[in-house]
């Protein structure tokens, strides 16, 4: 069965690059443009992995992950933070919120696939 990955990023070009990379590896992708939109896309259906940006309008990535982890249906869904932020304190915030990995942009597609394959449920 094809695994589904939710991509949450306010940059359409980043969503497209991530989507292209994952679809090329056989994954199904769903896109959301910020944290709020990401929460709307969680309709109870099975999501195998989430890739989220940190700095986004309306709802940032850290708040989104906190909300996600509060939802019993997605409590154990692994999350990869994909961001330009490389500050250790931000990484610590991501870890505390429940993220499993921190990938700094710009990313190499192969790097992203390695992280996805390691964490996808």
């Amino acid at each position, binding site marked *: 069965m094809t695994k589904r990955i939710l991509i949450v*990023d*306010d*940059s*359409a*070009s*980043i969503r*497209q*690059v991530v989507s*292209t990379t994952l679809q*090329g590896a056989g994954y199904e992708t769903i896109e959301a443009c910020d944290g709020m939109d990401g929460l709307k896309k969680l309709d109870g259906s099975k999501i195998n992995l989430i890739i989220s940006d*940190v*700095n986004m309008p309306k709802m940032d990535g850290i708040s989104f992950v906190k909300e996600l982890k509060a939802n019993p249906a997605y409590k154990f869904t692994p999350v990869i933070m994909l*961001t*330009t*932020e*490389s500050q250790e304190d931000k*990484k610590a915030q*991501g*870890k505390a919120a429940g*993220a*499993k*990995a*921190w*990938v*700094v*942009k*710009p*990313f*190499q*597609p192969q*790097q992203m696939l*390695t*992280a996805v394959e*390691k964490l996808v449920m």
Partner: protein
Amino acid sequence: MQQIAQPMPVSSDWKNPWIDPVCRHMILPQFALSTVLLFSGFWWLPASVLGVLSFIITIRLGRQVANVQKQQLEQLSAERSAIEQRFERESRQTLEMYRVSHPIWSRQLRTANEQSEIAVMELSQRFKAIVNRLSDSGSSDFQSDAEVLSKLFASSENEIVTVMKELRQSQNSRRDILSKMDALSDYTGELKRMAQEVVGIAEQTNLLALNAAIESARAGEAGRGFAVVANEVRTLSSRSKDTAARMTDNVNRIHESIASTQAATEQTINTQTELMNRAEQDLEEVLKKLKHLMKEHSESSVLLQNKATETQRDVEDILVNLQFQDRLSQILLQVTGSMQGLSDKLEQPSEQIDVQSWLDDMESSYAMQEQRTNHAGQKSHNSDADDNDITFF
């Protein structure tokens, strides 16, 4: 604002208090009178007059200086007031210009960012299509072409070899038939010899029957019955000879027929062998050429596939580089946000602006190392190559 730094315009009058006409007209007569009285013996008189005059002059001069200083102060006060008014006016104009320009600049930056985003999206979509096409052609067309041709060639070669083997077998079975026909031909020769032996026996029987007829005639009436038998034997002998002659004719005809069939079969086999040898040579030639073509095709396919893979990798690298748009967006968003914050602060003139706190807030809003480096006034790099990593928690 630059005019504030200009030197103050000052009058040259206040520097020269001796310009006062009273003072100027009194000095020379006083000097002349004092000289005359000094040399005429009334030395005390000029001294007294000189003292009185000096006192008057001092008072007069004091008043002059006080007047000049007063004028100077009034002038300075007026100039300061003018400068303050100009400063206030220019500050208000600057603020107004910023207030009016800020939304325009924000819109321009937003438009630039949006246009850049659209362009990057279009570029990445096109590159994605190229990658997909290259991926499809690389994995199927070139490879499958080469594989299909190779398989086709191998199966054709097998089929040709099988057909040739079958033809050779068929040729061998014809040769068997020919050797059996040879044996048949040998049997007909035997039959022919046997027929000739029958003819010989019939002739000898006929001779014996003739002798018996002569002996029976010599015996007279007693040999009459035997003469009948001898006659019958001669008749039988004659019939045997005829039969043997017909048998010989038939055997000869069969032998001739077999011989002609043998000749025709042998000719056919020879022709077939010749044709097969030629066909084999031609096939070998064709297969050799096909093999060569296959090899060339395979090599060019591999070359094309390598080129396609190389291009695919280049395009993937470009897709990675297109991520600059996200970095650009973040920098522009921070700048527009900062401009909005400054605008809001300037809208409240009574509020005291703490510059350091303002700069600290600005610094805390950065997402990338590049922004922090720029803020610190250091030379920034195009990307955070060192930050490019994955951290697993």
